[in-house]
């Protein structure tokens, strides 16, 4: 049974570099056992947040706690609670993988006998046992990422913070990385993962937080965030043949509320349109198509994804509609049953996806 008390508590966290505000009053809590996807453009403030959490940077104001320990005042304690994998591997030349892990184990004060067992365990968890005798600088990028995760696990931290773990990996390595992260979540670890590869994050995270220009724009479960930021539903109408396209477009333009958004694709025999209509109203649109003798094979809603939600949030902010975006974020969190800006451990469904 996983204890779902908050393990990461960030309150009103602000970081300024001179005139530039890298992080603006960030408030966020992450429950134990959660895999949180931390999303944002380059320079959005993700790495700044992470560096404060792991004790590598000092906030201008606000607090960050990990398992109750203050990241600034109890930095030494926090080092034992957090495993951090930066986006750079941090290799030492002429060292074999086992020696590399042995050094970091010793640096964390793990006794020699325990250390040896622990190294075996983390190599097994990350599926890297076979490379224990290889030299770290000779490993491929994917292998180095695995060893990086193994290193973060050595001192059995409660929270793992991984900066771009899937960056630069080939498809096979990406799948393996996903499996490793899910395995770690099964072990009860709390994971904070940043990535630019949103479909990848969507597959492993049960919670997401979107950061833009240092401000938290949205957070909650994946479904909640994507649904909330879905401005219009995208409906796809598949027809028997391309010759039906013109008639279908005419009917849809007449009945749809967003005529400019009716997009035909003759090659696919598909017409797509965006609408704010509810299901019952959409039933009338379908009936109109049938009445006009348009032969429809499928009439379906296209599920929106994390990428779409992210682009909606950031585009809205760039267009000066930040207030609307933030206002939209609040009900999302409320829907999660926690205070604004908090994240709860989500269902297994998201991970099982």
């Amino acid at each position, binding site marked *: 049974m996983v204890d779902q008390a908050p393990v990461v508590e960030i309150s009103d966290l602000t970081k300024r570099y001179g005139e530039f505000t890298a992080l603006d009053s960030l408030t966020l809590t992450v429950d134990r056992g959660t895999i949180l996807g931390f999303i944002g453009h380059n320079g959005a403030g993700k790495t700044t947040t992470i*560096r*404060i959490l*792991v*004790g*590598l*940077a*000092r906030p201008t104001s606000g607090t960050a706690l990990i398992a109750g320990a203050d990241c*600034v005042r109890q*930095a*030494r304690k926090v*080092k*034992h609670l*957090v495993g*951090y994998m*930066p986006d*750079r*591997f*941090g*290799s*030492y*030349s*002429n*060292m*074999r*993988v*086992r*020696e590399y892990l*042995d*050094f*970091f*184990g*010793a*640096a*964390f*004060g793990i*006794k*020699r006998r325990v*250390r*040896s067992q622990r190294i075996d365990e983390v190599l097994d968890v990350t599926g890297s046992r076979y*490379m224990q*005798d*290889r*030299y770290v600088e*000779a490993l491929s990028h994917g292998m180095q990422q695995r060893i990086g995760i193994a*290193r973060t696990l050595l001192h059995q931290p409660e929270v793992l913070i991984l900066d771009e773990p899937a960056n630069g990996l080939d498809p096979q390595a990406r799948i393996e990385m996903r499996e490793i992260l899910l395995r770690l979540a099964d072990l009860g670890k709390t994971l904070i993962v940043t990535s630019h590869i949103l479909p990848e994050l969507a597959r492993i995270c049960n919670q997401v937080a979107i950061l833009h220009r240092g401000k938290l724009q949205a957070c909650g479960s994946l479904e909640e965030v994507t649904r909330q930021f879905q401005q219009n539903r995208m409906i796809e109408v598949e027809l028997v043949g391309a010759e039906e396209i013109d008639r279908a477009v005419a009917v849809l333009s007449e009945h749809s509320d967003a005529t400019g958004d009716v997009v035909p694709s003759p090659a696919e025999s598909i017409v797509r349109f965006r609408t704010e209509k509810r299901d019952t109203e959409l039933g009338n649109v379908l009936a109109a198509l049938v009445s006009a003798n348009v032969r429809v094979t499928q009439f379906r809603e296209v599920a929106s994804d994390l990428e779409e939600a992210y682009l909606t949030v950031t585009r809205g902010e760039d267009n000066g509609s930040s207030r609307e975006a933030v206002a939209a974020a609040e009900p999302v969190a409320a829907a999660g049953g926690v205070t604004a800006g908090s994240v709860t451990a989500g269902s297994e469904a998201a991970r099982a996806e």
Partner: protein
Amino acid sequence: MLSNPVVSRELLGLLRTRRSIAILAAVAVAFSLLIIARWPSDGVVDLSGATSRDVFRVFAYSLTAAVALLVPVFPSTSIVQEKQTGTLALLLNSPMGPVSIYLGKLIAALGFVLLLLSATLPATAACFTLGGVSLFDEVLPLYLVLAITSVLFTTWSLLVSTAAMTTDGAVRGTFGGVLVLFLLVLLPHYFLDGSESSLAGIAAILRNVSPVPAIMDIVGHADVGSRQLVSQNSGVATFALFGGMLSLLFAGMTVGRLNQTLLDRARSQGNVTDDRAAGVRVFRRLMFLIDPQRRKTGIGPLTNPVMVKEFRSRQFGRLHWLLRIVGGCAIVSLGLAFAATLGSEEWGVETIGGIIVSMQAALIVLFTPSLASGLISSERESGSWELLRMTPLSASRIVRGKLLSVVWTLLILLMASLPGYGVMIWIKPILEEQIIQVLICLAIGAVFAMLLSATVSSFFVRTAPATVASYSILLFLWAGSLLVWLGRDAPFGYSAVQTALSINPMAAALSVIGTPGFESYNLIPVNWWVTGIASGFLLVVLLIQTWRITKPE
């Protein structure tokens, strides 16, 4: 040649860096100040030109030292950097052949040297205006020797750059070679001069590789404290011959290496002896004594993990390499001891002592910056410093571990050359106290060199410039004071030389052992105080700087 795209890219790229502008400006200012400092200020006219010749001597030596220190800086990383960034593969895949690529790099590097030497022309002109210095007999030959020296060191740097795998490794190899070509080739002749052995003949030829005898010939230092370093023939012509031949050899070797094989290296599969057949394991044990491919045990409970990590991650830090280096040192030391036993009457124990001290000093100058200048900068360069900061290790423990890894290595190396001293004490027991003082000088010198390099390292985020800075400062202090010693009769007086040598522990060791040329200086205990206080200061700076970069930003 300017149509060669590598020339314009390299030279323009070089001139766009702040470092190159700073070097050019510093050279122009430093040499102008040197002339201004020696410019006659009284109303008496020196008709003999002795004053201006004194100034010219200092000027010539300083300029040669500046060329030796500055010329290799850029070409040493020129090819290895391209290897690391992947642009060498693009160059090799272009229609340009290895010769044009090499010439492009060589000409660009020499173009910078041309600017460097041009920056000294105003100071040279001022020196010439003082009178007493001949344009054709002194000024032009000086620039000719400097030009040949630049070509020699540039070709050497480019050769090392093709062989090295990292920029800091290239810098270390380059400066190590420069030290050998510039100074160490003089030592055998310095000590063996007058002997009729075949070794003395080889040493006499070897010295011509260095530009120093040619410079001494130009400034008329042949008989003043030179110990006949200058050959009987024209020093300039001989150096031009040897320097030119060596440059051609280095250039040929580099062009020969500039092909796809430079990039065609397999990744190590990480073979471990423990997993191999029993016969192979026994054979390797016999061959290596300490097999580098055996699986290591974990770091012990009372050991500083950073120290062990430093040994393991250093190419020459592995025990099997240390054993080889120690073996080499022991063989040389025992060879010297054997020579001392056979030839003590001919050479004198002091000369043998001088050779051993010089050998150890060379080891310290070559190895210490190489070991210590990357202690912190390499961690910051590779990104592993962030990982170290994430561990509970304190700044002082990190520094202790890193320094210990250098101390142990230096101690092992220096201990290996001790048997020679034992033989000296056996031949001349009265020397025991002096030898203890020599050992203290060398130890203090090694500690100073280590702390200087480590402190420099803590201020840099890349190892190559940290290594350049460490070697430059150390050579400036130690080789610079020896340059003052070279001018010990003119233009520098006894007290000036004594003061200059007081910052050089190696000179102190040579004076204690009574090496010819150093025996009249009394450098102990002033040298110990100066070096000790400087080392203490450096240690404090190192600890503060390490603590500062360990703290949250």
